[in-house]
Every structure is written in C-alpha cells, then in structure tokens.
C-alpha cells in the first residue's frame, strides 16, 4: 500500500508542479496614469492601488461601512480632530519588508512633499502624523472631520515601502523602482507592466488577509469600446469592464456566452451652471432647466434604460440622501413656461443659450445625450438651445474662464461620503474649480457643520437642509446615476466591487 502511495505521489507531485497557473484576462479601455499614490487620482489607477496596496481601513464587502484592514482598530478623540490607529502585528510588504507606523507616516509626508494631484485629499485635513510606537500612528487633523475614516480608505493614505519608493520623485512606471517591480501590501502584486498594453498581477504571499483565488490576472488595454466588445465575443478576454457603449451593453446582456454583472455605481452625471455672470446668473432660469429635463426619457433614449434617474446630487445607496429634485418633476413644461414668461421671454424672443458637452472625456454617447437634452429643453418655444462641443483640455480651460454658461459633467467619488457629492461641487472654494462660481454663506455654513461633526443626526440635518436649498438655488442639476456592467465568461464567479466601485481582484474566482 505504501509503495502504491509513493508511486502515486511520484506521478502526482510533478503534475502539480507543472500545472498551469490559473489565469484570468481582464480587458478594459481605461488608462493608467502614474503608478504612484502620491500622484494619481483616477478611477482605474486607484483600482490598481486597491489591489496591490492596502489601507488602514477598507470597505466591508457589499457595504459602504468601513472595517479594519492594516489597522486592527482605531479611536478618535472627543474633539474629533485626532485619530489613533493601531496596526496589526507582523505586517509585511510584498517583498518581505516590515510595514510599521513609520512607513505610514513616511507615506503621508511623501504625498505632502511631492504635491501631486491628490495632495489636497491629505493637506486639506492632516496637520501632522506622529509615530507613537511601531504599531501606533496618530493623525492630528487641522480640524474635526467626521468622515476622516473614509479618507483613510483612499489610496493617497495607503502605506508604501520607504526602502523602495524614492522620497523626492514621482514614479510613473514600476520599472523605475529598485528591482523593477511595484512593492505593496495588497492581496496581489504587480509583476509586469507595459503602459497601454498589459499588466500582470500575481498573488502576494505576504498579504495579511485571505489569498487571491486566481494565480494570475492579466489586464489587456483596448483602444476603444468596439474592439473590447469584439475581444469579449471572441473569448480573448475573460472579463470586460469599463467601458462598453450602451448598444454593446444591451447586445451583450442578450449574449448566451457571457455573464452579465450589473452593479450599483456611485458614478453620477450632472449639469453645471456658471452662476456668477452670464445668462444663468438668474436662478429662476436655472430652475427652468431643472423643470424641463426629463431623466427617464433621457436614460431610455440615450442609454437604453441602463442607468437610474438621479434626483439629488447624493446618489442612491448613500446615507443622508434626500431626492429633492423629484418634486420638480420631469419635463414639467408648464412650470418652466410660467417662470420664463415672468422673466419676459416670449416665442419671438426666446431664452437662448449655449449647452456645452465633450465626447473626448465622457464617450461617444455624450453627443446623443446633448441632443436629447436640447430636444427636451426646446419642448417649449420659449427656449432656444445651441449645442457646442470642445475636447476635454479646451473644455476645462473654458470653464475656468467662465466661457460656458451651462455644461455637462460627471463624477466618480474619491471617498464614500455625501460630502464628496455636495461640498466638492458647490462650496464657495470648490465651485470655482468646477466652473460653477457659486457662493452662499448659508451653504458654506451647512457644509462646515456636516464636515466637522461625527454625529450622524447633526450631519443628516445639515445635508437635509442643503439638499432643500439645492432646488431653489440650482447651481447644478443631477441627471442620472450610472450602473456598472461587467461581462465575463461563464466560468468567472464572485465579481464584486467595493463601495468606491473598484473591482476587487482577490474576490474573483474561476469555476471548472
């Protein structure tokens, strides 16, 4: 019997040694910026960081609640401006280097010093980071911030290895690092990377949590949605995520050879007004716009029913949400005409303005969205819309120069808190950066109240008031909330994203 077992082992051991690693190919049209958390602030690169690095806190699966990750616990002082995190024992980076409180502080100091794109996510809040002992790190804030734990769960706060990352320069490509590879503390490690072409991830054996189920994940980059869809249909990719065209999504949902995962997204689209001068300085004309648009019709005509109407800038699924725009109705021509008549507009002298959009940032469907909005606005003869387009670099310059009276925008959240769907657009300071130039003391006071409080009741009251004011002042109008569509081959299971809509590679699995 023993002999038999030994013979079987002799046969089976080599087989297991030479067994091909399980591999999943993931196709996307997204792009990577810099593989450096001190520099990057975009959806897809943050997805990398979510999987190859780890934060002190992370989102619970299927929830927007936070739970310990690298930190096993944290506490906050009474004033709400000092957070103390206790790290897990024995944490290591993927190369075996120790991850301790000093690495956390070093990372934050580096992000501040390099002044990259996401620096304001740190410098707006953090005064200093103090290492108490190798497992304890204290964040002293500039003021009380109720949602600081949500910020801690964003990549700029993810600890990096001080022995690997240079303190004085931003890394664009992991080949610039010693050893030529990215070193992180996430469930996967980035083993090979070629910009706009491929990225290869393998399981990080030093990860503190459960190991990834797939040995190797390869990301393939496609130039456009059409080619990505063709690659999916041909079976060249096992998973396609971001971004197929609405018509392709509708076709793939009927495709028997692929599985569709429809996930709730916190991605929103909205209308921005330049409120300080020009035709939309008068808030009643902004209200006219809000009355005339018809969200369900827009979603059906342009996106074939693939997204959800949005009646508050704070999307569905988040706390402190009050969909106040619902009361204004959809395609409420009567209410709009009453306001227009009061403002002195007639059929012969209609309210004329330019509506701007860009296809170079929001995709090909944007032109259809603009056309449908124009037709909805012109349901009354008292309105005359001229559509204008510019590519993204010009678009941004024009909103800074107040050259677009009304324009279409989109938003992926940085941190999962209603603050990131409200104050970031319309507080006096933030609204300048978005081309809105809106300023109201009442609004700023409410934002200050919700930001500085950790009390849910107080925050709820502030957000309720501000969403009530939104339909009166109308600095922006919510249009729709995006659903996420991920298409996979039949054998791919456990396709999940976290609350920030970042795909979690360690959850993915392949069935036989």
């Amino acid at each position, binding site marked *: 019997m023993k002999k038999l077992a030994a013979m079987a082992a002799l046969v089976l051991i080599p087989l297991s040694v030479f067994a091909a690693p399980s591999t999943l190919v993931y196709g996307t049209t997204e792009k990577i*910026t810099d593989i450096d958390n001190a520099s990057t602030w975009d959806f897809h690169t943050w997805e990398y960081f979510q999987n190859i690095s780890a934060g002190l806190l992370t989102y619970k699966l299927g929830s927007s609640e936070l739970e310990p990750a690298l930190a096993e616990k944290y506490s906050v002082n009474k004033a709400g401006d000092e957070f103390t995190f206790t790290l897990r024992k024995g944490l290591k980076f993927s190369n075996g280097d120790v991850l301790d409180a000093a690495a956390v502080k070093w990372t934050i100091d580096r992000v501040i010093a390099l002044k990259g794109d996401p620096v304001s996510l740190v410098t707006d809040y953090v005064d200093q980071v103090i290492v108490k002992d190798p497992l304890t790190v204290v964040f002293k804030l500039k003021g009380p911030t109720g949602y600081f734990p949500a910020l801690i769960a964003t990549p700029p706060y993810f600890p990096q290895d001080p022995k690997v990352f240079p303190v004085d320069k931003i890394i664009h490509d992991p080949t610039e690092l010693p050893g030529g590879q990215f070193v992180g503390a996430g469930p996967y490690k980035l083993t090979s990377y070629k910009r706009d072409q491929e990225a290869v991830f393998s399981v990080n054996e030093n990860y503190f949590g459960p190991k990834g189920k797939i040995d190797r994940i390869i990301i393939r980059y496609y130039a456009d949605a059409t080619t990505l869809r*063709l690659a999916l249909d041909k079976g060249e990719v096992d998973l396609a995520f971001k971004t197929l065209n609405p018509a392709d999504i509708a076709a793939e949902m009927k495709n028997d050879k692929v599985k569709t995962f429809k996930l709730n997204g916190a991605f929103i689209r909205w209308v921005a007004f330049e409120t300080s001068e020009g035709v939309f300085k008068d808030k009643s004309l902004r209200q006219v716009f809000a009355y005339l648009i018809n969200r369900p019709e827009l979603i059906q005509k342009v996106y074939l029913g693939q997204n959800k109407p949005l009646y508050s800038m704070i999307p569905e699924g988040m706390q402190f949400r009050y969909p106040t725009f619902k009361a204004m109705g959809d395609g409420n021509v009567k209410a709009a005409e009453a306001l227009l008549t009061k403002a002195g507009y007639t059929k012969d002298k209609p309210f004329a303005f330019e509506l701007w959009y860009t296809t170079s940032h929001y995709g090909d469907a944007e032109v259809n969205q603009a056309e449908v909005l124009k037709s909805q606005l012109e349901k009354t003869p008292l309105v005359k819309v001229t559509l204008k387009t510019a590519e993204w670099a010009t678009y941004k310059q024009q909103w800074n120069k107040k050259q677009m009276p009304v324009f279409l925008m989109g938003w992926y959240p940085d941190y999962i808190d209603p603050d990131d769907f409200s104050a970031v657009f319309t507080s006096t300071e933030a609204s300048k950066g978005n081309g809105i130039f809106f300023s109201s003391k009442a609004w700023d006071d409410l934002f200050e109240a919700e930001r500085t409080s950790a009390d849910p009741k107080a925050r709820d009251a502030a957000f309720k008031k501000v969403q009530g004011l939104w339909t009166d002042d109308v600095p922006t109008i919510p249009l729709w909330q995006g659903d996420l569509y991920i298409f996979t081959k039949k054998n791919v299971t456990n396709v999940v994203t976290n609350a920030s809509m970042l795909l979690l590679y360690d959850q993915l699995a392949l069935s036989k």
Partner: protein
Amino acid sequence: VKHLFRYLGLRLTLTVPMLFVLLSLVFVVLRVLPGDPISAMLGNHAPESLIIQKKHEFGLDKPIWVQYGDYLVQLARFDLGTSMIQTEKVLTPIAEKLPATVELTFAGLIVALLIGVPLGAWAARHRRSGGDFLARLYGNIVYCIPVFWLGLLLQLLFGVALDWLPVAGRVGARVITSDFETTGFYLLDTLLKLDFDNFTDVIVHLILPAVTLGVTLSGIFFRLTRANMLDSLKSDYVLAGRARGLTEGSVVYGHALGNAFVPVLTMLGLQFAVLLGGAILTETTFSWPGMGRLLLERIYLRDYPTVQGIIVVFALFVSLISLIVDIVHALIDPRVKY
C-alpha cells in the same frame, strides 16, 4: 560614388531647415489651440498656487517667443525635453512605442507592394481586358476607402464571423510580452529567443492591421506600376526581347517590370509618410500600442513637448527612408546621376 556622397550630404543638410520649419509650425499650432497642459494634468481640485507653480516649472509663464527660443536651444543639445503630463523624458514613451509602429508600417508596406506591383504589372499586360477593368476598379476603391472603416470590416469578417484571426493587440491576450521582449520589435525578439510559438502569435496578430494598411496603399502602387508598365511595354527593348524569342513572361515580368519598378521605388519613399499617417488610424482600430495612439492621447492632453518630440521623430524617420530610397535608386538605376 563621390557625387552620391555629395548629394547625401546636401540632403542631410536640407533636413535641418525642413525640421526647423516643421517644428516651428507645430510649436505655434499647439499653442494656438485652446486648452492648456496644466489644466489637463492637474485635476479639478488643484489649488491656484499649484497651477501657477506648475506653469512656472514648465516655463509656460514666459512669453511665447522665449519659450520657442528655449525649445530650439534644447533641441540643439539633442534633448527633446520632458513630458508635461507624465514628467518623464519625451524619448521614453517614444522609444517604447516606436518599434510597434515601425513593425506595422513595414509589414503594411510589404503587403502594399506585394499586392500593388504584381497586380499593376498583370493589369498592364492584359490591358483593356475584363481583368484589367476589375483590377482598376480595385485600385480606385482601395484608394478611396477610409483605413479605419476597412479595418473594422476586416475585423468583423476575419475576426468575428470567420474567427480566423485576432481582432486586437500585438500578441494574444494570455501572452506576457516581458517574457521575450528585448528590442520592442516582437518579430525579432521572439526569433532571438527562439520562441516560435510566440513568433507565430505575433505574425497572426500582425496580419489584419498590416493587410488593412497595405490594401489601402496598394491602390497607389497598382496605378503607378500599371502606368509605367504600359510605357515600358511600348519600349524598343521589349520589342527586341520578343523578336529574340524570349517568353512573354520573361519579357513582361523580367525586363519591363524591372524598369517600371524604378518610379515605384521613388514613390515608396514619398508614401512612407502616408503609411505612418495610416498607421495612426490603424493603431486605434486594432488597439495597436504604437506612436499613433500616443500622439492622439498627447494631443488631447496638450502635452506640447511629447507631441513635438513625436513629430521630430516622424520627420527624421521619413527623411531617413527617403534617403535610403535615393541611395537604392542610384544603385539600381545607372542612369541616375547625382
């Protein structure tokens, strides 16, 4: 030979003013376009102080003529500058993407020649026949057809409907290029590693983009070859060859085609720039990670130094090919004097 070297020296000298004019045009056009690289680089969240600091770092706060002078001085030191978006040397992404474009361009050129020249010779030989009519129709159609549209059609036919060929990329989705990549020319790299599986995979991936690019250009070579062949076939030496009892194939494809090919060779140098332009569109259709996609992306981002760098490299490349064609021309045609 002495004259040839003098001619080459002159050609190389003329490249400098050509580059100067081209770069001056690109420099001005980029800055006239609305949109600025700093807004594109920094998000909506960037504070004003950071925008001012970045503009200063890249010298964008200086008058345009000072920026232009600085750029020329930099170029004179053979430095293409630093990208404003990725803050990396401009040469880095160019060196990374150029091999893909060169590989595709040469493959496209081979396809164009393999289709255009024999078809042109055959059509001239069978002038005014039904076959000649169909060949001329082909020449006109492919000359007019947009390269991205043809690419999409071929993708749908051979990639999806027949499932014979892959639709995108330089290698299969499961092939990891870092396993064999050394020069960036994948055909060469796989051969150097004696990796014949991946060599075949690279060839298979090259077929559709190269055919797309080659077919659209084959129309020009077809028309040129046919026209020159018609002239050659009327020549005395063709009559003499026939009188001496040479076979028709030997007369047409051995003697007449050889002479008719000389103008085609000249055109080849000129068409190289067109090929590079076509490669830009083909790269997008086939997700080919080359210079075309890089150029398009950096124009959108107003990354002035990288766009200028790509134009310099393209211009030098076209000049080099033209020069090589001139040398070959002189070597194969004894009538050519420099």
